[in-house]
Protein backbone atom coordinates (compact mmCIF):
# COMPACT_ATOMS: atom_id res chain seq x y z
CA UNK A 1 0.00 0.00 0.00
CA UNK A 2 1.26 3.43 -0.92
CA UNK A 3 0.25 6.22 1.48
CA UNK A 4 0.91 9.84 0.54
CA UNK A 5 0.30 12.86 2.73
CA UNK A 6 0.52 16.46 1.64
CA UNK A 7 0.10 19.29 4.13
CA UNK A 8 -0.61 22.80 2.83
CA UNK A 9 -1.63 26.13 4.29
CA UNK A 10 -0.63 27.33 7.72
CA UNK A 11 0.45 30.92 8.31
CA UNK A 12 3.48 30.39 6.11
CA UNK A 13 1.52 28.67 3.35
CA UNK A 14 4.40 26.25 2.82
CA UNK A 15 3.88 22.65 1.77
CA UNK A 16 5.16 19.49 3.32
CA UNK A 17 4.93 16.16 1.55
CA UNK A 18 5.88 12.60 2.42
CA UNK A 19 4.88 9.08 1.45
CA UNK A 20 5.19 5.57 2.82
CA UNK A 21 5.19 2.28 0.93
CA UNK A 22 4.08 -0.42 3.34
CA UNK A 23 5.01 -3.42 1.20
CA UNK A 24 8.23 -4.27 3.03
CA UNK A 25 7.13 -3.23 6.47
CA UNK A 26 6.54 -5.67 9.33
CA UNK A 27 3.75 -3.42 10.64
CA UNK A 28 1.97 -3.21 7.28
CA UNK A 29 -1.32 -4.52 8.67
CA UNK A 30 -1.45 -1.72 11.22
CA UNK A 31 -0.74 0.87 8.51
CA UNK A 32 -3.47 -0.57 6.29
CA UNK A 33 -6.09 -0.43 9.05
CA UNK A 34 -5.12 3.12 9.93
CA UNK A 35 -5.10 4.30 6.32
CA UNK A 36 -8.48 2.74 5.57
CA UNK A 37 -10.06 4.42 8.58
CA UNK A 38 -8.46 7.75 7.75
CA UNK A 39 -9.68 7.63 4.16
CA UNK A 40 -13.17 6.48 5.15
CA UNK A 41 -13.54 9.61 7.32
CA UNK A 42 -12.11 11.94 4.65
CA UNK A 43 -13.99 14.14 2.24
CA UNK A 44 -13.98 14.12 -1.52
CA UNK A 45 -13.33 17.85 -1.69
CA UNK A 46 -11.15 20.03 0.55
CA UNK A 47 -13.16 21.32 3.54
CA UNK A 48 -12.81 24.96 4.55
CA UNK A 49 -10.47 25.23 7.51
CA UNK A 50 -9.86 27.87 10.16
CA UNK A 51 -7.72 30.87 9.15
CA UNK A 52 -4.06 29.83 8.95
CA UNK A 53 -4.82 26.26 9.99
CA UNK A 54 -3.24 23.39 8.05
CA UNK A 55 -5.02 21.51 5.22
CA UNK A 56 -4.26 17.90 4.33
CA UNK A 57 -4.51 15.68 1.29
CA UNK A 58 -4.27 11.94 1.95
CA UNK A 59 -3.82 9.55 -0.96
CA UNK A 60 -3.95 5.79 -0.45
CA UNK A 61 -3.25 3.65 -3.50
CA UNK A 62 -4.44 6.43 -5.77
CA UNK A 63 -7.59 7.37 -3.87
CA UNK A 64 -7.42 10.91 -2.48
CA UNK A 65 -9.40 12.44 0.37
CA UNK A 66 -9.11 15.78 2.17
CA UNK A 67 -9.31 17.09 5.72
CA UNK A 68 -8.38 20.25 7.64
CA UNK A 69 -7.23 21.30 11.08
CA UNK A 70 -8.64 21.22 13.65
CA UNK A 71 -11.37 18.86 12.48
CA UNK A 72 -9.47 15.65 12.03
CA UNK A 73 -10.42 12.21 13.27
CA UNK A 74 -7.98 10.47 15.60
CA UNK A 75 -7.04 8.11 12.80
CA UNK A 76 -6.40 10.92 10.34
CA UNK A 77 -4.15 12.71 12.78
CA UNK A 78 -2.31 9.55 13.63
CA UNK A 79 -1.75 8.67 10.00
CA UNK A 80 -0.69 12.19 9.02
CA UNK A 81 1.81 12.46 11.84
CA UNK A 82 3.24 9.03 11.16
CA UNK A 83 3.70 9.63 7.47
CA UNK A 84 5.14 13.11 7.80
CA UNK A 85 7.40 11.92 10.59
CA UNK A 86 8.54 8.95 8.57
CA UNK A 87 9.27 11.24 5.73
CA UNK A 88 11.03 13.88 7.74
Amino acid at each position, binding site marked *: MRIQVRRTGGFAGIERYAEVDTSDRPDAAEWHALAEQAVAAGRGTPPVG*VPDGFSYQITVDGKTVYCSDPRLTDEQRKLISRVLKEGA
Partner: protein
Amino acid sequence: MTTHGGFEPVFCTIVPPHVLDRLAQAEDPALAGPARRTLQRDAFERTQRRLTTVIGASAVAAVADGKPQRTIHDARHGTDLPGHKVRGEGDKPGKDATVNRAYAGLGATFELFLQAYRRDSIDGSGLPLNATVHYDRDYNNAFWNGEQMVFGDGDGEIFLDFTIPIDVIGHELAHGVTQYTANLTYFGQPGALNESLSDVFGALIKQYTLGQTAAEADWLIGAGLLAPRVTGVALRSMKEPGTAYDDDVLGKDPQPATMDDFVRTGRDNGGVHINSGIPNHAFYLAATALGGHAWERAGQVWYDVLTGGELRQDAMFADFATLTVKAARERFGDGEELDAVSKGWEQVGVRTL
Protein backbone atom coordinates in the same frame (compact mmCIF):
# COMPACT_ATOMS: atom_id res chain seq x y z
CA MET B 1 10.52 1.92 2.16
CA THR B 2 10.00 5.55 2.76
CA THR B 3 10.54 8.20 0.20
CA HIS B 4 10.14 11.85 0.64
CA GLY B 5 9.47 14.90 -1.43
CA GLY B 6 9.65 12.97 -4.67
CA PHE B 7 6.97 14.88 -6.51
CA GLU B 8 7.70 18.40 -5.43
CA PRO B 9 11.40 19.15 -5.38
CA VAL B 10 10.62 22.76 -4.67
CA PHE B 11 8.54 22.03 -1.60
CA CYS B 12 9.74 19.35 0.73
CA THR B 13 11.07 18.48 4.15
CA ILE B 14 10.23 21.60 5.97
CA VAL B 15 7.96 21.99 8.89
CA PRO B 16 8.03 19.31 11.57
CA PRO B 17 4.70 17.80 12.59
CA HIS B 18 2.59 20.19 14.61
CA VAL B 19 0.51 19.70 17.65
CA LEU B 20 -2.27 17.51 16.38
CA ASP B 21 0.22 15.34 14.59
CA ARG B 22 2.10 15.02 17.84
CA LEU B 23 -0.96 14.22 19.83
CA ALA B 24 -1.87 11.62 17.33
CA GLN B 25 1.35 9.82 18.18
CA ALA B 26 0.54 9.82 21.85
CA GLU B 27 -0.34 6.42 23.23
CA ASP B 28 -0.49 8.11 26.64
CA PRO B 29 -4.11 8.91 27.54
CA ALA B 30 -2.84 11.91 29.51
CA LEU B 31 -1.90 13.42 26.17
CA ALA B 32 -4.69 12.01 24.07
CA GLY B 33 -7.34 13.11 26.59
CA PRO B 34 -6.63 16.83 26.33
CA ALA B 35 -6.51 16.50 22.57
CA ARG B 36 -10.00 15.07 22.49
CA ARG B 37 -11.24 17.78 24.83
CA THR B 38 -9.68 20.40 22.57
CA LEU B 39 -11.45 18.93 19.58
CA GLN B 40 -14.74 18.82 21.43
CA ARG B 41 -14.32 22.43 22.44
CA ASP B 42 -13.45 23.32 18.92
CA ALA B 43 -16.61 21.67 17.63
CA PHE B 44 -18.57 23.69 20.18
CA GLU B 45 -16.83 26.88 19.13
CA ARG B 46 -17.56 26.22 15.51
CA THR B 47 -21.21 25.70 16.27
CA GLN B 48 -21.28 28.98 18.18
CA ARG B 49 -19.63 30.75 15.27
CA ARG B 50 -22.16 29.37 12.84
CA LEU B 51 -24.93 30.57 15.12
CA THR B 52 -23.27 33.97 15.23
CA THR B 53 -23.25 34.03 11.46
CA VAL B 54 -26.90 33.12 11.27
CA ILE B 55 -28.45 35.06 14.12
CA GLY B 56 -25.84 37.77 14.61
CA ALA B 57 -23.41 38.30 17.44
CA SER B 58 -24.95 38.78 20.85
CA ALA B 59 -24.23 42.03 22.63
CA VAL B 60 -20.91 41.61 24.35
CA ALA B 61 -21.02 42.79 27.93
CA ALA B 62 -17.70 44.53 27.70
CA VAL B 63 -16.67 47.99 28.72
CA ALA B 64 -16.47 50.03 25.56
CA ASP B 65 -14.15 52.53 27.13
CA GLY B 66 -11.48 52.53 24.45
CA LYS B 67 -9.14 50.35 26.44
CA PRO B 68 -8.08 46.84 25.54
CA GLN B 69 -8.87 43.88 27.77
CA ARG B 70 -5.94 41.61 27.13
CA THR B 71 -5.25 38.20 28.62
CA ILE B 72 -2.20 36.14 27.72
CA HIS B 73 -2.18 32.43 28.46
CA ASP B 74 0.72 30.00 28.48
CA ALA B 75 0.06 26.54 27.08
CA ARG B 76 3.36 25.44 28.68
CA HIS B 77 4.15 23.47 25.55
CA GLY B 78 0.88 21.60 25.83
CA THR B 79 -2.14 21.93 23.58
CA ASP B 80 -5.07 22.60 25.86
CA LEU B 81 -6.57 26.03 25.18
CA PRO B 82 -6.50 28.62 26.50
CA GLY B 83 -3.89 27.33 29.01
CA HIS B 84 -2.68 29.05 32.17
CA LYS B 85 -3.30 32.76 32.55
CA VAL B 86 0.04 34.52 32.88
CA ARG B 87 -0.73 38.18 32.24
CA GLY B 88 -3.95 40.17 32.48
CA GLU B 89 -4.77 43.73 31.48
CA GLY B 90 -2.68 46.23 33.41
CA ASP B 91 -0.30 43.62 34.86
CA LYS B 92 3.36 44.54 34.73
CA PRO B 93 5.67 42.84 32.24
CA GLY B 94 7.07 39.53 33.43
CA LYS B 95 10.29 37.74 32.58
CA ASP B 96 8.88 35.90 29.57
CA ALA B 97 9.62 37.94 26.45
CA THR B 98 7.12 35.91 24.43
CA VAL B 99 4.31 36.81 26.81
CA ASN B 100 5.36 40.46 26.79
CA ARG B 101 5.53 40.56 22.97
CA ALA B 102 2.06 39.03 22.66
CA TYR B 103 0.66 41.52 25.19
CA ALA B 104 2.27 44.47 23.40
CA GLY B 105 1.20 43.18 19.99
CA LEU B 106 -2.42 42.87 21.06
CA GLY B 107 -2.20 46.40 22.44
CA ALA B 108 -0.72 47.78 19.23
CA THR B 109 -3.41 46.13 17.15
CA PHE B 110 -6.13 47.46 19.42
CA GLU B 111 -4.59 50.95 19.19
CA LEU B 112 -4.50 51.04 15.40
CA PHE B 113 -8.11 49.98 15.02
CA LEU B 114 -9.24 52.42 17.71
CA GLN B 115 -7.13 55.45 16.78
CA ALA B 116 -7.20 55.14 13.01
CA TYR B 117 -10.67 53.71 12.47
CA ARG B 118 -12.55 54.33 15.74
CA ARG B 119 -13.12 50.60 16.11
CA ASP B 120 -13.37 49.33 19.67
CA SER B 121 -11.60 45.96 19.52
CA ILE B 122 -12.07 43.32 16.87
CA ASP B 123 -15.85 43.09 17.12
CA GLY B 124 -16.32 46.86 17.46
CA SER B 125 -17.79 46.34 20.94
CA GLY B 126 -14.79 45.94 23.20
CA LEU B 127 -14.30 42.22 22.78
CA PRO B 128 -11.63 40.95 25.20
CA LEU B 129 -8.46 39.92 23.40
CA ASN B 130 -7.11 36.50 24.27
CA ALA B 131 -3.94 34.83 23.12
CA THR B 132 -2.12 31.63 23.99
CA VAL B 133 1.67 31.37 23.64
CA HIS B 134 4.11 28.44 23.92
CA TYR B 135 1.59 26.20 22.18
CA ASP B 136 2.96 22.66 21.90
CA ARG B 137 6.65 22.05 21.18
CA ASP B 138 8.45 23.09 18.02
CA TYR B 139 5.10 24.28 16.70
CA ASN B 140 5.63 26.09 13.39
CA ASN B 141 2.39 27.96 13.08
CA ALA B 142 0.09 30.63 14.45
CA PHE B 143 -3.64 30.72 13.84
CA TRP B 144 -6.96 32.27 14.75
CA ASN B 145 -9.38 29.62 16.03
CA GLY B 146 -12.47 31.80 15.83
CA GLU B 147 -12.13 33.03 19.41
CA GLN B 148 -8.49 33.62 20.15
CA MET B 149 -4.98 33.67 18.78
CA VAL B 150 -2.59 30.77 19.20
CA PHE B 151 1.18 31.11 18.78
CA GLY B 152 3.83 28.45 18.51
CA ASP B 153 7.48 28.87 19.47
CA GLY B 154 8.78 27.59 16.14
CA ASP B 155 11.29 24.77 15.91
CA GLY B 156 14.34 27.04 15.87
CA GLU B 157 15.50 25.35 12.67
CA ILE B 158 13.15 26.94 10.17
CA PHE B 159 10.96 29.22 12.23
CA LEU B 160 11.56 31.23 15.38
CA ASP B 161 8.93 32.37 17.88
CA PHE B 162 5.76 33.41 16.05
CA THR B 163 5.27 36.37 18.41
CA ILE B 164 8.46 38.04 17.14
CA PRO B 165 6.95 39.88 14.14
CA ILE B 166 4.25 42.27 15.31
CA ASP B 167 2.61 41.98 11.89
CA VAL B 168 1.99 38.27 12.56
CA ILE B 169 0.12 39.18 15.73
CA GLY B 170 -1.82 41.83 13.81
CA HIS B 171 -2.49 39.36 11.00
CA GLU B 172 -4.16 36.88 13.36
CA LEU B 173 -6.25 39.54 15.08
CA ALA B 174 -7.31 40.93 11.73
CA HIS B 175 -8.77 37.50 10.95
CA GLY B 176 -11.00 38.20 13.93
CA VAL B 177 -12.05 41.57 12.51
CA THR B 178 -12.86 39.93 9.18
CA GLN B 179 -14.85 37.21 10.93
CA TYR B 180 -16.97 39.85 12.68
CA THR B 181 -17.47 41.95 9.54
CA ALA B 182 -17.36 40.73 5.93
CA ASN B 183 -16.71 37.13 7.09
CA LEU B 184 -15.06 36.25 3.78
CA THR B 185 -15.17 32.55 2.96
CA TYR B 186 -11.76 31.02 3.58
CA PHE B 187 -11.35 29.47 0.15
CA GLY B 188 -10.30 30.56 -3.33
CA GLN B 189 -10.45 34.28 -4.17
CA PRO B 190 -12.56 35.32 -1.15
CA GLY B 191 -10.12 33.33 0.98
CA ALA B 192 -7.15 35.09 -0.63
CA LEU B 193 -8.89 38.41 0.10
CA ASN B 194 -9.35 37.27 3.71
CA GLU B 195 -5.62 36.49 3.88
CA SER B 196 -4.67 39.72 2.14
CA LEU B 197 -6.74 41.84 4.54
CA SER B 198 -4.87 40.19 7.42
CA ASP B 199 -1.54 40.96 5.76
CA VAL B 200 -2.61 44.54 5.00
CA PHE B 201 -3.70 45.32 8.55
CA GLY B 202 -0.78 43.32 9.98
CA ALA B 203 1.60 45.50 7.95
CA LEU B 204 -0.26 48.66 8.95
CA ILE B 205 -0.01 47.75 12.64
CA LYS B 206 3.75 47.41 12.26
CA GLN B 207 4.00 50.73 10.40
CA TYR B 208 1.74 52.48 12.92
CA THR B 209 3.82 51.17 15.82
CA LEU B 210 7.08 52.28 14.19
CA GLY B 211 5.62 55.56 12.92
CA GLN B 212 6.70 54.70 9.38
CA THR B 213 5.51 56.22 6.12
CA ALA B 214 4.67 54.00 3.15
CA ALA B 215 8.07 54.85 1.67
CA GLU B 216 9.92 53.88 4.87
CA ALA B 217 8.11 50.59 5.47
CA ASP B 218 9.59 47.24 4.40
CA TRP B 219 6.18 45.82 3.42
CA LEU B 220 7.28 42.38 4.59
CA ILE B 221 5.12 39.88 6.45
CA GLY B 222 6.96 37.80 9.02
CA ALA B 223 10.33 39.58 8.96
CA GLY B 224 12.42 38.11 11.76
CA LEU B 225 10.45 34.87 11.83
CA LEU B 226 12.79 32.77 9.70
CA ALA B 227 15.71 31.09 11.47
CA PRO B 228 19.18 32.37 10.57
CA ARG B 229 20.03 29.36 8.39
CA VAL B 230 17.08 30.00 6.07
CA THR B 231 17.78 32.01 2.94
CA GLY B 232 15.05 34.60 3.02
CA VAL B 233 13.95 37.85 4.62
CA ALA B 234 10.33 37.04 5.51
CA LEU B 235 7.35 34.90 4.53
CA ARG B 236 5.71 37.33 2.15
CA SER B 237 6.52 40.63 0.47
CA MET B 238 3.73 43.02 -0.42
CA LYS B 239 6.21 45.16 -2.32
CA GLU B 240 7.59 42.30 -4.42
CA PRO B 241 5.42 39.20 -4.04
CA GLY B 242 7.40 36.04 -4.80
CA THR B 243 10.74 37.35 -3.47
CA ALA B 244 10.49 36.84 0.30
CA TYR B 245 12.52 33.63 0.36
CA ASP B 246 14.32 31.24 -1.93
CA ASP B 247 15.79 28.44 0.12
CA ASP B 248 17.07 24.91 -0.39
CA VAL B 249 14.72 23.55 2.22
CA LEU B 250 11.79 25.97 2.11
CA GLY B 251 11.65 26.31 -1.64
CA LYS B 252 10.78 29.61 -3.28
CA ASP B 253 8.13 32.13 -2.28
CA PRO B 254 5.22 31.14 -4.58
CA GLN B 255 3.26 34.39 -4.48
CA PRO B 256 2.17 36.08 -7.72
CA ALA B 257 2.06 39.88 -7.96
CA THR B 258 -0.43 40.10 -10.83
CA MET B 259 -3.37 38.19 -12.33
CA ASP B 260 -1.14 36.96 -15.15
CA ASP B 261 0.47 34.62 -12.63
CA PHE B 262 -2.67 33.71 -10.66
CA VAL B 263 -2.23 30.19 -9.29
CA ARG B 264 -5.08 27.73 -9.67
CA THR B 265 -4.79 25.05 -7.02
CA GLY B 266 -6.95 23.10 -4.62
CA ARG B 267 -4.23 23.11 -2.00
CA ASP B 268 -3.97 25.67 0.79
CA ASN B 269 -7.75 26.20 0.63
CA GLY B 270 -7.42 27.09 -3.01
CA GLY B 271 -4.18 29.02 -2.66
CA VAL B 272 -5.31 31.57 -0.08
CA HIS B 273 -1.71 32.22 1.06
CA ILE B 274 -0.51 32.28 -2.55
CA ASN B 275 -2.89 34.49 -4.52
CA SER B 276 -3.18 36.95 -1.62
CA GLY B 277 -0.01 38.37 -3.20
CA ILE B 278 -2.16 40.04 -5.87
CA PRO B 279 -4.44 42.15 -3.63
CA ASN B 280 -1.45 42.65 -1.28
CA HIS B 281 0.49 44.22 -4.12
CA ALA B 282 -2.47 46.36 -5.20
CA PHE B 283 -2.62 47.79 -1.69
CA TYR B 284 1.12 48.42 -1.67
CA LEU B 285 0.88 50.23 -5.01
CA ALA B 286 -2.01 52.42 -3.88
CA ALA B 287 -0.40 53.20 -0.51
CA THR B 288 3.02 54.08 -1.92
CA ALA B 289 1.50 56.17 -4.71
CA LEU B 290 -0.28 58.21 -2.04
CA GLY B 291 2.69 58.36 0.31
CA GLY B 292 2.55 59.36 3.96
CA HIS B 293 1.07 57.04 6.57
CA ALA B 294 -0.54 54.13 4.75
CA TRP B 295 -3.17 53.57 7.42
CA GLU B 296 -4.61 57.05 6.91
CA ARG B 297 -5.86 56.89 3.34
CA ALA B 298 -5.25 53.55 1.61
CA GLY B 299 -5.88 51.75 4.90
CA GLN B 300 -9.06 53.76 5.48
CA VAL B 301 -10.41 52.78 2.07
CA TRP B 302 -9.68 49.08 2.66
CA TYR B 303 -11.21 49.30 6.14
CA ASP B 304 -14.32 50.99 4.74
CA VAL B 305 -14.80 48.11 2.32
CA LEU B 306 -14.15 45.43 4.94
CA THR B 307 -16.68 46.90 7.36
CA GLY B 308 -19.08 48.69 5.02
CA GLY B 309 -21.58 45.87 4.67
CA GLU B 310 -21.42 45.60 0.89
CA LEU B 311 -18.58 43.10 0.67
CA ARG B 312 -20.10 39.68 0.15
CA GLN B 313 -18.75 36.55 1.81
CA ASP B 314 -17.98 35.09 -1.60
CA ALA B 315 -16.47 38.25 -3.08
CA MET B 316 -13.94 37.86 -5.89
CA PHE B 317 -10.93 40.13 -6.44
CA ALA B 318 -12.88 42.25 -8.95
CA ASP B 319 -15.77 42.70 -6.49
CA PHE B 320 -13.42 43.84 -3.76
CA ALA B 321 -11.48 46.11 -6.11
CA THR B 322 -14.67 47.73 -7.38
CA LEU B 323 -15.78 48.42 -3.81
CA THR B 324 -12.43 50.05 -2.98
CA VAL B 325 -12.84 52.42 -5.91
CA LYS B 326 -16.33 53.28 -4.72
CA ALA B 327 -15.13 53.72 -1.14
CA ALA B 328 -12.23 55.93 -2.21
CA ARG B 329 -14.66 58.19 -4.08
CA GLU B 330 -17.15 58.29 -1.21
CA ARG B 331 -14.54 59.06 1.41
CA PHE B 332 -12.14 61.31 -0.50
CA GLY B 333 -13.96 62.45 -3.64
CA ASP B 334 -12.52 62.45 -7.16
CA GLY B 335 -8.97 63.04 -6.05
CA GLU B 336 -5.60 61.35 -5.88
CA GLU B 337 -6.95 58.61 -3.59
CA LEU B 338 -9.39 57.44 -6.25
CA ASP B 339 -6.64 57.60 -8.84
CA ALA B 340 -4.12 55.68 -6.70
CA VAL B 341 -6.58 52.92 -5.81
CA SER B 342 -7.78 52.51 -9.41
CA LYS B 343 -4.24 52.38 -10.78
CA GLY B 344 -3.14 49.92 -8.10
CA TRP B 345 -5.70 47.39 -9.26
CA GLU B 346 -5.03 48.13 -12.90
CA GLN B 347 -1.33 47.39 -12.41
CA VAL B 348 -2.03 43.96 -10.90
CA GLY B 349 -4.53 43.13 -13.63
CA VAL B 350 -7.75 43.21 -11.62
CA ARG B 351 -10.63 44.95 -13.37
CA THR B 352 -12.77 47.44 -11.54
CA LEU B 353 -16.24 48.46 -12.65
